[in-house]
């Protein structure tokens, strides 16, 4: 009877924010962070892509340093608290050079604590490679991804309805700087747009809504907008993914991935009629999905797909020299709010992944993230199980993760295998980048288990012989 609960705080927050903004505007005294007084955003363009289940935002800032200011080593970026908690990844590049030979150099982005914007908005600092000289302008290309930012409304739909979602944002860019000129484009998957907030000038052309251009916005200004539109993309959310990478120096890398999958869209309400689903595929269960696509490395072998009660016999693997694609179906089509769990396992040739570092250590070069295409992983755990006897492991991941070590036992282990555990929340497809695990390994350990087996067998035979002799002796004693 009221909007779903987690929308409440957001709205409340928006109110506070807006009020504060209003007061700020009334006072007309921009609370500009210290040291950055000089920077102004000359032109800004924000393109929000809502076509998928994940919100992708492309932001182009043309930043200018004031003539009278000192050099600026970084440019700040502001996010609202809700955005921050849904923010999966931020990338920034800077356009170098002139029209012709224009190159984009990636810039590091990190949360900055030195200055904080009003109303709990938090700032991220883009560290410029070369500081911005007074009166110089540069162009920054920003890209960030928000997960769980499309709120299904209505929250419950029947099989025949299609899924409508809310998206909340601001018409103007929330920025600690003075923005001279800006426009925001929101792109939606279909022409079916229920409603959108008008902040003139606002125009809509088909699936795209344009806000702006607005000129000369004060810092920290925020004009909440609400877009309500149809989005029938499968909202596949992996609530929990545990990837276990077992490296065996006998030439195989075995990967086991345990998924806990949920349809994150509008919850399914009332009956599920297989008849409707099978006969009118198009209109019934428009937002449901029945198969998933996983992009695996090339040359994978012995792929299996099962869950806790046995194999699931509905998957096939397309493989070429660049990648292998595993297309598989859960046991049943997933409707809004339905869960399912499954396990995918596959082996890969060792030489594709294990290399010798210059310092003599070995390192495994693996891919981070989740092989499923455009899904959100709420909670990702990667366990790299190094061969028994490997020492001083160290994982190198290009972004912030939580890591620790543990020991796991496998076939006939004695001391157990060192396992590097890497955890990260809120992972999206952009995180599928290579990462390395370095470790030292003494090849002698490879012989441990064979030797163990041999000795065991030897022991067995010895006992057999001993038994025979013993048996004879007993017989004799009784004979006497």
């Amino acid at each position, binding site marked *: 009877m009221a909007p779903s609960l987690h929308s409440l705080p957001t709205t409340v927050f928006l109110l506070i924010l807006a009020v504060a903004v209003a007061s700020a505007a009334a006072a007309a005294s921009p609370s500009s962070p210290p040291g950055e007084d000089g920077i102004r955003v000359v032109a800004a363009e924000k393109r929000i892509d809502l076509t998928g289940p994940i919100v992708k935002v492309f932001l182009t800032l043309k930043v200018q340093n004031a003539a009278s200011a000192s050099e600026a080593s970084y440019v700040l970026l502001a996010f609202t608290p809700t955005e921050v908690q849904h923010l999966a990844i931020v990338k920034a590049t800077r356009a170098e050079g002139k029209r012709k030979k224009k190159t984009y150099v990636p810039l590091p982005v990190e949360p900055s604590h030195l200055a904080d914007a009003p109303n709990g908005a938090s700032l991220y600092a883009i560290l410029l490679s070369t500081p911005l000289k007074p009166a110089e302008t540069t162009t920054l290309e920003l890209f960030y991804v928000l997960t769980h930012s499309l709120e299904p409304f209505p929250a419950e739909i029947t099989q025949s309805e299609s899924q409508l979602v809310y998206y909340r944002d601001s018409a103007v860019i929330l920025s600690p700087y003075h923005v001279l000129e800006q426009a925001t484009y929101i792109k939606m998957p279909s022409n079916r747009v229920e409603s959108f907030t008008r902040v003139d000038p606002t125009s809509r052309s088909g699936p795209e809504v344009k806000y702006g251009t607005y000129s000369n916005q004060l810092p920290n200004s925020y004009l909440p907008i609400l877009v309500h539109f149809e989005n029938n993309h499968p909202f596949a959310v992996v609530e929990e993914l545990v990837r276990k990478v077992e490296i065996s120096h006998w030439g195989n890398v075995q990967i086991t991935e345990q998924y806990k999958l949920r349809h994150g869209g509008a919850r399914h309400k*009332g*009956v*599920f*009629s*297989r*008849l409707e689903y099978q*006969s009118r595929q198009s209109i019934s269960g428009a937002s449901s999905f029945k198969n998933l696509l996983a992009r695996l490395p090339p040359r994978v072998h012995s792929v299996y797909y099962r*869950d806790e*009660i*046995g*194999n*699931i*016999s*509905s998957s096939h693997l397309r493989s070429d020299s660049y990648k292998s694609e595993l297309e598989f179906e859960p*046991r*049943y089509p997933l409707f809004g*709010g*339905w*869960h*399912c*769990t499954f396990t995918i396992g596959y082996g890969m040739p060792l030489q594709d992944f294990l290399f010798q570092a210059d310092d003599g250590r070995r390192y495994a070069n693996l891919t981070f993230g989740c092989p499923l295409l455009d899904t959100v992983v709420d909670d990702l755990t990667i366990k790299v199980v190094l061969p028994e006897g490997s020492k001083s492991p160290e994982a190198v991941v290009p972004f912030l993760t939580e890591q620790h070590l543990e020991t796991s*036992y*496998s*076939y*006939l*282990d*004695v001391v157990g295998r060192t396992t590097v555990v890497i955890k990260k929340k809120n992972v999206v497809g952009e995180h599928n980048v290579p990462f390395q695990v370095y470790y030292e390994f003494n090849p002698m350990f490879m012989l441990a288990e064979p030797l163990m087996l041999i000795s065991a067998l030897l022991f067995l035979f010895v006992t057999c012989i001993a038994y*025979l002799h013993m*048996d*004879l002796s007993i*017989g004799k004693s009784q004979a006497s």
Partner: protein
Amino acid sequence: MAEPEPTTAAAAPAPGRLRNAFGGVLCAFTLLLIGVLAFSIRLFSVIKYESVIHEFDPYFNFRVTQFLSKNGIYEFWNWFDDRTWYPLGRVIGGTVYPGLTLTAGSIWWLVNALNIPLSVETVCVFTAPIFSANASWATYLLTKEAKGTGAGLMAAAILAMVPSYISRSVAGSYDNEAVAIFALVFTFYLYLKTLNTGSLFYATLNALSYFYMVCSWGGYTFIINLIPMHVLLCIVTGRYSSRLYIAYAPLVILGTLLAALVPVVGFNAVLTSEHFASFLVFIILHVVAFVYYIKGLLTPRLFKVAMTLVITVGLAVCFAVVAVLVALVASSPTKGWSGRSLSLLDPTYASKYIPIIASVSEHQPPTWPSYFMDINVLAFLVPAGIISCFLPLSDASSFMVLYLVTAVYFSGVMVRLMLVLAPAACILSGIALSSAFDVLTRSMKFQLSKVFNDGSAVSGDSIAEGSTASNDTKGSSTSTVNTNSAKIENRTEKSEKPSKKNRKKDREVTGSVPVKPKKEKRLSVLPLEASVVGTLLLIVLGGFYVVHCVWAAAEAYSAPSIVLTSRSREGLHVFDDFREAYAWLSHNTDVDDKVASWWDYGYQTTAMANRTVIVDNNTWNNTHIATVGTAMSSPEKAAWEIFDSLDVKYVLVVFGGLVGYPSDDINKFLWMVRIGGGEFPHIKEPDYLRDGQYRVDSQATPTMLNCLMYKLCYYRFVETDGKGFDRVRGYEIGKKHFKLTHFEEVFTTHHWMVRIYKLKPQKNRIRGKLKKLKSSSKTSSTLAAGRKKNPWQ
């Protein structure tokens, strides 16, 4: 294995010792191969399908094993399971035969202690094959006790692949019988061993293995009745010996005590009639023993006098005891017999009184084809075996015959007891074959030696050797033959892919290998020829048997009934609907929701979907099952009320009409009606019958067309093809378009094989009555009166 060799070797001359050593090693090797064969012939199900638990009961055992491996023995011991038989619950620890579970559990524990990460499921899947290997070894020992090594090997080889045993012990059919057969045979072996050696040591072991049997299977009563019968037989036939006493008396005492330790048996071990026979024989045995003792002491003349006294006393005692027993029996309900064993003694009992027992297909009496299917050529070899048992009638061989006879009777009553018959048949036919081979080969040997060296001495000692150390020759020679046959079987088994024809061919080739060197010389003497032909014939016969077994293992018995396959022109088509439904239940319903279905699916639902069920395959409470049956066979509203009173949230029905899956709920419906009607007389079977049979087509009775089962199965079925053609029954359904008022469809699997419905909540308002809706308002108001109690009146 190697144990008996040296003792005999001590007696035998140097060449004999050598040959024995060789024979021993060969024998061990053969046994190993037989074990491998027994294990690997049961892996077809894993190869063709997947490594998964089969059918129904195994799922329960699997669940119990999981619990055991998680919570340890004591938790398991007094595990009160609140997820089945809602709301009654079930005391698993006290009502289950723990042998299988404990076995698998300890295997799992052992394996994980070695850091070999096998899942509980894997261990469970492969328990049965492992134990069938053990069983074949046990068979070897048993037959060896009766008829020497050769027969032993033969019997072991035959048992390793006897179809009726395979049917219960393929990889994945994780059921009590899998280990029970091993325990059974091994107990018999130890009994005979004790009987032959008369050592208390084996008697103890015997009691222990009997204990294991009691833990494993309800069929232990077979042992505790068969052995007394044998003892009695021995006494009556005047074969009493003190060894018999040693073999039997401790077994009864220790066995009874141990059996009483198993919770599920408990005091039944002394209170129910299944066990009284043993006590009676126990007493008789003592009397007889006493008599013999006196006889030993006295001179014949006095003995007569003593006899009179002893007899009178003994008889008095006997009568007293018998009286007590009879009194006990009479006092206890059902004359102290459990329903199943009663239905064993009186085959018509179950169908008359206990429809639940009758409703289980494996409790039906078997048909003749099933005999051929299950024990194939053995059926013909067995009589020969019996004859050769009688040739020198020893205690052991008489026991074999007795075992066979009883087993035949029981298997005739219940098809599942074909399993008990299988070892007996194997042993006897093993004996038959080996003695046949023995005769043939010895005659060959004799002829050949005669042909070659006319030196009387040589021939003489050869004859002497043949006669005196016949035991050894038998052992070695037959063992060689057997190794060949065993090897053959292995080979065929290893190359299961090639078609039967060339498989048979290469058996012919290999089969004739051992005979080849003799081939060119056999022209000389005619009986030699005959014997060679006979050998060949026997080998071919074995060949047929092997072919049949492999076929049975590969085709007939390897399907794990939860996933079905069908071959069509576009290749293999898989029907995995059951697991689809169970997975849906386990992930998309509340963890405490109750699921009602017919009891066949209870075990699977608890194990795979982890949801509370109302009834399951352990059919201990007839009333509860009858309640569900009644609900299924009553009209929608009545059914809703029954289910609602049981807090049922979901109803699960199995429906094969769309894809033609024959064993679905409509075909089981007669049992629902019968069992329901047995408890609740307002369900009358005739209401559902149209001229004596269940129909759901246009001629079906209105009661049938309005019962819940019909509606849940055929809800919106007509819209699939427009006619509503049922592919199982093979006609169009009677009532095509109807609505559900108290249930709503929440899930239906891909092939419609499982349909899950949810109970709608109670109506929120109660309509008033306008003229046009009088009827409905009346029902709803009565519903109000019934459902809702009214504090202010």
